[in-house]
């Protein structure tokens, strides 16, 4: 399934749209004329080999990066014209490695929602962690627990879109499945989830739609189908195994 398929399935206007987007770092062209859409209420997976530009494309969505050319739109508005801080609370992000700040879980949550104390316990439970863990030091959590706490911290900002940058790459299979279930559940509850992965098994398990990148471009449908079928598609490097 491609990003275009997502729109074809009648879910309305795309929440995120990339129009001829290019990104260049010095002499390196990371993204080349990428055009794709991301729809509400579903998991869209950004797949492709390592170095294909997946993370860069994801970081464009909350303006941690800006395009060298083209336009990224959020609900039809050009991202470049939106207040980046307000945008980032509407387009939340979970990073590849769990990045909890020093202190307790509650102190981490307070960074995201200083006045949201009543929500902390509910959000902790929502990601499958015990509600009485708020006073637990963040550095005592396992990788999977820490990543779920990061997800909870992001959700406290009330995002409409959730960007997941290979969030399971450092987790064991059980923790991976837990996080996948949480991502799919959030999509079912109405969030747009844009999930970066090069793990084909994961793509099959969670993707409602898929955008395949290869060398900075959106792979055409035949190449994308080959890649997703684990045939000789666009590049083999970095293909994940099936858990």
């Amino acid at each position, binding site marked *: 399934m491609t990003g275009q398929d997502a729109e074809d399935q009648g879910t309305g206007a795309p929440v995120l749209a990339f129009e001829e987007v290019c990104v260049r*770092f010095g002499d390196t062209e990371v993204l080349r004329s990428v055009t794709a859409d991301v729809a509400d209420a579903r998991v869209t997976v950004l797949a492709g080999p390592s170095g294909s530009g997946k993370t860069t494309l994801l970081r464009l969505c*909350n*303006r*941690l*990066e*800006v395009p060298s050319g083209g336009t990224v739109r959020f609900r039809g508005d050009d991202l470049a014209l939106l207040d*980046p*801080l*307000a*945008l*980032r*609370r509407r387009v*939340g*992000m979970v*990073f590849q*490695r769990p*990045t909890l*700040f*020093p202190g307790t879980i509650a102190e981490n949550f307070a*960074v*995201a929602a200083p006045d949201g104390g009543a929500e902390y316990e509910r959000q902790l439970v929502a990601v499958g962690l015990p509600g009485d863990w708020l006073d637990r030091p963040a550095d005592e959590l396992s990788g999977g627990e820490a990543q779920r706490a*990061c997800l909870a*911290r*992001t959700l406290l*900002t009330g995002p409409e879109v959730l960007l997941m940058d290979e969030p399971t790459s450092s987790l064991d299979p059980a923790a991976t499945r837990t996080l996948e279930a949480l991502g799919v559940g959030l999509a079912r509850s109405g969030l747009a989830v844009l999930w970066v992965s090069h793990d084909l098994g994961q793509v099959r398990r969670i993707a409602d739609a898929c955008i395949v990148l290869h060398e900075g471009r959106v792979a055409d449908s035949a190449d994308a189908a080959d890649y997703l079928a684990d045939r000789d598609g666009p590049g083999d490097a970095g293909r994940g195994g099936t858990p």
Partner: protein
Amino acid sequence: MTSAATTTVTTGYVGWLGLVASLSLVGIAVAISIWQHLGLERSLIWASVRAIVQLLAVGALLAVVFSPHVPLIASWAWVLFMVVFAADTIRRRAPEVPGALGLALMSLGLATVVCLGVLFGLRIFPLNARTLIPLAGMVVGNSLTATVVAARRVVAEFTDKRAEVEARLALGISSRDSARPYVRDALRTAMISQIESTKAVGLVFLPGAMTGLILAGEKPLQAVLVQAAVMFLILGAVATTAAAMSLGLSRRLFTPDHRLVRLARVAT
């Protein structure tokens, strides 16, 4: 014994013979280097000769600047030279810091204006060449190391903890608030050494200004008062330069739309 000889003994006056005799202490350092095969003999001798030449040159220049016929503007020019030279030293000692020269000029200039403004504005010292140049030297010289530490620490924090900083930005936190914990750590590191020195003063060591005054025959209480004012001057100067450098640098490390810039790795 003549009265001149008595003066020599009680005030610590050092003549040319005394200076030559004091070189025997450098001889001890050279002997240790030879004994332990440190290979530092040439450096020790070169450093000592260079120190004497530099100090003599400075002494000759000071004699001119301190002359009552020379206007105070010459002393201010001296201060400006010290600030520029120190800023260039900071740039060379912290090559990985973007825009180090401009930031160092701003930080040192600010500390000099603020600290000397307080000292002379409140008439703690009279404003003349004899007070301006040494006090400005105290500000600039003691701030130099702290400024380098602050600048390098900020860059290291933002490089090593880039993921943490971006995680804060991604939560919709402003660049200034996202930077605050890391700037705070850098500032603490830069200031802690001077705070420890201030705490140990008088117990562990007698600082330079006080030692100099006592050797010159000043009463200990007056020496203590001058030294205390100088210590507070240094503390204020270190805090001002480190804060100005840390905050100024942290602003340079973000774009106006709250993105963390990519820092080039520099071999140091």
